[in-house]
């Protein structure tokens, strides 16, 4: 638990105001769990469309949506109702979000309130200037296809509205648990994990750090990326804790056995240890993460907590950029400078390439790229060429260039065979692509 002194030091400079919203039934439960644990000093606010559930909640600040249309009886699992109710109460929601720097939205997607209200709330919170981080669960498969569809649609909306979405599909949680675990226990674990996520990020921001992660770092990883994030926490103690920690972390189903790290564009790592935290520990942990994530933008922090004597804990938030069709965020953040540079270089290569002197081309459909052009870029250019024959290929194209994900690598003859996964890396993908080696 962050002692009071830290909060006061924060206050001495500028107090970071954080608010956690629990939306809907699942969100409310998560909130209660967080409030009960050591996150007591954050401000909490429960939002629901069902007056009875809200009345039963232990959270002091409550907000009932859709009093008039729904008469406090809930949405009946229809996200559209939830959304309408929220749109009606925009003013009230804005008031709730006023003067906060960081907003967490905890919700379970799939139902009416969580799915419908969260995107609206995220939008409102963002408009009032806060960094919005949504932490949501997706329903279990047995909850039926309708809820899955609703959840997916809600997730898309939320991704578009919030700065970052940390999504925990319940089926991943199921992997963590034994078959015989009770349902109550399963939901409790999910809620716990999400609470841990909030706690991890909160602690990352407030603990006195050797290497401090501050609000700006978090913002640079998340803001404007419309990201899909995964997070994982791991803890180990005693001799060899760094190795044990990494084993736990990389084995975590929340990171898809380490695959999430390789796929990530930006990674935030926070290491917490006792006063006996050594450089070696930090080094070992970071080295492992670095080898997994060589091409991503990495932000790290290390902090000391007296309570963590002989223990080592790490929180990782790995975010992957959203779908390519989404336009880039309005303000390119620190991590995207490279991107911007590439963007700038884009048109130049473009013209150079397309206005090349009319060399007699071989009759084949395949046109060899000039040797000085990296195959990656060449591939992108070809993709465009194939796409936009004769059509307006100006601005649209340029956007596409920056956004084309590198993941669509054809595996050639191994396309249909069992992939060779080694420590989360797909070895069937050419090495030079995985290592980001540019050929030129």
């Amino acid at each position, binding site marked *: 638990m962050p002692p009071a002194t830290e909060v006061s030091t924060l206050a001495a400079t500028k107090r970071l105001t954080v608010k956690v919203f629990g939306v809907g039934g699942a969100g409310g439960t998560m909130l209660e769990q967080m409030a009960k644990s050591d996150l007591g000093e954050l401000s909490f606010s429960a939002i629901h469309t069902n007056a009875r559930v809200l009345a039963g909640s232990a959270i002091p600040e409550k907000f009932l949506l859709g009093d008039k249309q729904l008469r406090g009886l809930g949405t009946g699992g229809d996200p559209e109702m939830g959304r309408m109710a929220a749109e009606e109460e925009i003013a009230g929601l804005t008031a709730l979000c006023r003067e906060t720097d960081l907003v967490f939205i905890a919700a379970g997607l799939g139902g009416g309130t969580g799915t419908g209200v969260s995107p609206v709330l995220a939008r409102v919170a963002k408009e009032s200037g806060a960094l919005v981080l949504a932490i949501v669960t997706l329903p279990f498969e047995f909850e039926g296809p309708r809820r899955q569809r609703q959840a997916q649609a809600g997730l898309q909306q939320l991704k578009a509205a919030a700065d970052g979405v940390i999504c925990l599909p319940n089926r991943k949680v199921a992997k963590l648990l034994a078959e015989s675990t009770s349902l109550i226990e399963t939901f409790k674990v999910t809620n716990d994990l999400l609470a841990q996520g909030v706690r991890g990020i909160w602690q990352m921001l407030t603990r006195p750090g050797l290497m401090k992660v501050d609000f700006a770092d978090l913002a640079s990883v998340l803001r404007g990326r419309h990201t899909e994030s995964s997070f994982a926490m791991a803890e180990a103690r005693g001799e060899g804790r760094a190795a044990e920690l990494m084993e736990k972390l990389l084995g975590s189903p929340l990171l898809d056995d380490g695959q999430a790290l390789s796929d990530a564009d930006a990674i935030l790592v926070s290491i917490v240890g006792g006063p006996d935290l050594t450089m070696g520990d930090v080094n070992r942990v970071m080295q492992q993460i670095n080898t997994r994530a060589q091409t991503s933008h990495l932000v790290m922090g290390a902090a000391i907590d007296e309570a963590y004597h002989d223990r080592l804990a790490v929180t990782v938030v790995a975010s992957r950029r959203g779908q390519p069709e989404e336009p880039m965020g309005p303000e390119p953040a620190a991590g995207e400078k490279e991107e911007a540079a590439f963007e700038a270089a884009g048109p130049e290569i473009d013209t150079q390439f397309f206005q090349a002197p009319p060399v007699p081309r*071989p009759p084949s459909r395949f046109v060899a790229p000039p040797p000085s052009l990296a195959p990656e870029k060449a591939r992108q250019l070809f993709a465009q060429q194939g796409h936009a024959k004769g059509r307006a290929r100006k601005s649209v194209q340029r956007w596409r260039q920056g956004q084309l994900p590198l993941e669509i690598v054809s595996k050639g003859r191994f396309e249909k065979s069992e992939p060779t996964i080694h420590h989360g890396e797909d070895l069937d993908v*050419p090495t030079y692509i995985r290592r980001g080696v540019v050929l030129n």
Partner: protein
Amino acid sequence: MFDSPSIIVGLDIGTAKVCAVVGEVNEAGGLSIIGLGQAKSRGVRKGEIINATLAGEDIRHAIVEAEQMADVEIQSVYLGVTGAHLHGFNNRGFHPVVSSDREITEEDVQDVLKNAKAINLPAENRVVHVIRQHFLVDGQDGISNPVGMFGARVEVDVHVVHGNFNRLQNPIRAVKSMQLEVDDIVFSGLASSLALLTNEQKELGALVIDIGSGTTEYVVYADGIIKHTGVLAVGGDHVSNDLAYGLKVPLGRAEQLKIEQGAALIEESVKGKTITLTGDLGLPEKTINLEHLRRIMSLRLEEIFQLIAQELDQAGLLNYLREGVFLCGGGARINGMQTLAQQVFGLPASLSKTNSISGLKSALDQPEFATGIGLVKFGSFEHKKRSEGRSSLFQVKTSLSQLFRRD
């Protein structure tokens, strides 16, 4: 089981080729290779059969060729198996000595070996090999044969290779459909190491890397015993695939480029050089950068070595390899592989010769045939044991091989 009991055949169903090697054990117990047959493999990917019909045809071709060359009729084979599903690990079994005088008997040794074999494997997995490493008596390490010694507790370290039962059955089934018997299945990496290493090299510590088309197998010997085995489902096919992707050429052309222009290192002299590819009519079709070709190859091959080095480093074995690294398999032919291996492992590396065997020496001294020859060698050990009478280890082995002979 054999027509002529002294004929031993090794069959290696690889991703690039199927290879049958015929060996003959003479009266003095010496082994000589008398025949070899090979066929291009079409039904195998990453070391495992994906098209049983094609694989069957290829096996038949290889066997027929070997039969003609050796002038014998082949009835049973020692079959090499590989694939990403195979795993090796070390296990320890122990057994209290109960006899009143505390003398360790043959039965005690049998019991301790049995205990070491009782491993908690996934239900669908089966043991391929249980290889004795050494015994411990009352904690005293490094005993090779405890029979006749005194002690209260005898332990044994074994190296166990296990794999998925169904996937092990596939090649066995393919061979049986050709009306051939399978004497035993042998992990390909183990077979290669048998063909390549002399006893001194095993004693001093050596790493054998068999870089095939579909898979790369590796085996570590130290102090004369097998310490570690592993399979990486990455091989020469991956190199070709990378080239096809990176240089944007068809897979066949990539394969050809790999053989003609490929090397494991990027020399200064290739920088900026280009190659012009010509089409069917001899007209220039495409220009590729030689440096790119080399870089793509070099990164992939380096990675293979690095992955192995990492694993051995974790197992703490890198310091035991005093004889260095021995390369075999088709991938070992790539120029500069030895230098690359030297750089990655920091150990002397060499393209290995299949010594310790007599026969068609010059024809056989190719890195690709190491597995086939090793299989024959494995067979000759079995043969020797059989003719020497039923030794204890033999009984363990037969029970194992019987496991796989069942349909």
